[in-house]
């Protein structure tokens, strides 16, 4: 009844997809959760090389009654994937070019490959990639073994444990035991290796986009948010866990004083957000001030959790494509402009509100259902503010 006829795409389009390297809209019938082939050699150590894996034949089907617009969108998608593929297949990935391309979004299938390169977790040199990743994973496993040997710091472990239990409580993936145990280990190792900050609530949220993205390489097109990783071979879980750890570590390294005593990095960002808002939207800034609303009251969480509490995880992942493409300042600098763009978006509403209403509104914004389009508009606005004010700021410092 509901099943619509499918037909194969014309040959030339299929050829394009071959080049695109990503199984764009393939639907595998296999029920065993084996790694999706394009990433198998990348994420788990095998003898195949990465470039060869990218040559994997994608399967593509399209609805017979697809509209011209749908086909157009698909073609554009394939074109983008193709450009990513060409960059990734080079002996040395051109990081600048990859950043420029990824800024506008990474195809979901390629994120498990692109993100580690953007973060510096995977080297840009293809020849070094497999061995480097294998070494880093071994380092993580050894770190975990050592950290857990002879008992652990129970206070740290307890805090992590109670927070992992309440991480994304509405998403099935995070209710699975395998996921929870992996997150506990990741957060624990990071905490004890960074005693000056230790585990701070909110860092648990920051680990999840990585975990979800890396896991998605092995879910056979099943929705990763409903996936139970318990069915995967242990070696694969370990790889996802290790890569999540290193990528989280890279991210947090760019926010070095966010989570130490007094959280000076966050305090500084909040002050910058206030200053920025005064320039972008003077009326709103003075209204907030007149109402006695302080920026720390609503934007502390924006900084501590990088807006993850205001958006769903999928939106966050799309945001991070851009943040990661901004280089080492994505999470510390560009984020500020995203926050400013985000705040002034509600300006009209906020100007009508008093103290109580403002705070209550800003603490539960109607953004849980935001789509990729909304996020992309926000990112563009942030880019605009950054272009306008970033240099200005530099001038002031001189």
């Amino acid at each position, binding site marked *: 009844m509901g099943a619509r006829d499918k037909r194969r795409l014309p040959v030339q389009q299929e050829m394009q997809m071959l080049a695109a390297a990503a199984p764009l809209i393939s639907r595998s019938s296999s029920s065993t959760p084996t790694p999706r082939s394009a990433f198998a050699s990348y994420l788990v150590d095998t003898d195949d090389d990465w470039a060869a894996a990218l040559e994997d034949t994608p399967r593509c089907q399209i609805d017979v009654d697809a509209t011209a617009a749908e086909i157009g969108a698909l073609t554009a998608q394939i074109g983008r994937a193709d450009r990513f593929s060409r960059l990734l297949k080079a002996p040395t990935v051109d990081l600048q070019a990859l950043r420029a391309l990824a800024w506008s979004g990474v195809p979901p299938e390629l994120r498990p490959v692109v993100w580690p390169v953007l973060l510096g977790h995977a080297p840009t040199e293809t020849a070094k990639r497999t061995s480097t990743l294998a070494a880093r994973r071994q380092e993580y496993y050894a770190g975990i073994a050592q950290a857990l040997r002879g008992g652990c710091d129970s206070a740290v472990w307890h805090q992590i444990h109670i927070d992992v239990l309440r991480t994304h*409580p509405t998403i099935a993936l995070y209710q699975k035991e395998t996921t929870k145990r992996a997150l506990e280990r990741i957060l624990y190792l990071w905490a004890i290796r960074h005693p000056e900050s230790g585990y701070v*609530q909110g860092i648990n949220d920051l680990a999840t986009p990585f975990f979800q993205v890396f896991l998605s390489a092995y879910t056979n097109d099943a929705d990763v948010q409903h996936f139970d990783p318990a069915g995967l071979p242990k070696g694969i879980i370990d790889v996802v866990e290790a890569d999540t750890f290193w990528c989280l570590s890279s991210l947090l390294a760019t926010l070095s004083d966010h989570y130490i005593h007094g959280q000076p990095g966050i305090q500084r960002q909040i002050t910058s957000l206030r200053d920025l808002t005064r320039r972008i939207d003077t009326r709103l800034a003075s209204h907030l001030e007149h109402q006695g*609303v302080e920026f*720390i*009251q609503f934007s502390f969480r924006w900084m*501590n959790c990088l807006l993850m509490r205001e958006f769903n995880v999928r939106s966050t992942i799309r945001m991070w494509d851009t943040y990661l493409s901004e280089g080492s300042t994505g999470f510390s600098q560009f984020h500020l402009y995203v926050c400013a763009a985000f705040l002034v978006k509600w300006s009209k509403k906020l100007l009508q509100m008093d103290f*109580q209403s403002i705070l209550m509104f800003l603490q539960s914004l109607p953004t849980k259902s935001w789509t990729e389009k909304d996020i992309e508009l926000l990112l563009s606005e942030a880019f605009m503010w950054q272009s306008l004010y970033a240099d200005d700021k530099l001038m002031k410092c001189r």
Partner: protein
Amino acid sequence: MRADTHDIPTLKVLLVGNSNVGKTAIFERFVDDFYDPETTTATIGVDFRSKIVEVRDTKVKLNIWDTAGQERFRSLTSSYFRNALGALIVFDLSVYETFEQLPLWFRELRTYSSDQQVATVVVGAKLDKVGSRVVNRSEGMAMADKNGAGYIEVSAKTGVGVVEAFEMLIGRIMDTPALWKDGDVLARTDSVVAVDQVEEGTRYCGC
């Protein structure tokens, strides 16, 4: 003191206590009469809600600040203690350690809530967790007495005691001459900013 009789006194109150004792659940049950353990995440920083309630035939507006329990946020959350009139100090009836930490919370409140007195109520939470109670009632009451606080046990899950906890707190604010006189609060502010902004009074009124 108040020219406009429709102006409702605003009371700044706090929810404090260790991580995961159920502060946010109590907060949500009270403000929205809502409880869903499935959607509870750790509070980051401080959450704010406002609610008008009537106690002893007097309408008051409660501005409630629900604070994060983790130590790292202490320097942030303690800045909200300033000018608070009252605080619910919450512990988990089923986790003894959260009870043992109560003196620490009393000390924090005294240190950071400026020089005025703060009315306090010790709240034993998760009363519904049958069989896992490790703090008995008399022990809890003794701790509260010793610190000049009220004592109540609640369940955000069933709703038992939640409204009463806030009413008890408001009652204690009204009974504290340094906080309340002639049907009005002597000091009030919603903000973590300076007290001088408060004197304008009308700023926070309305809805």
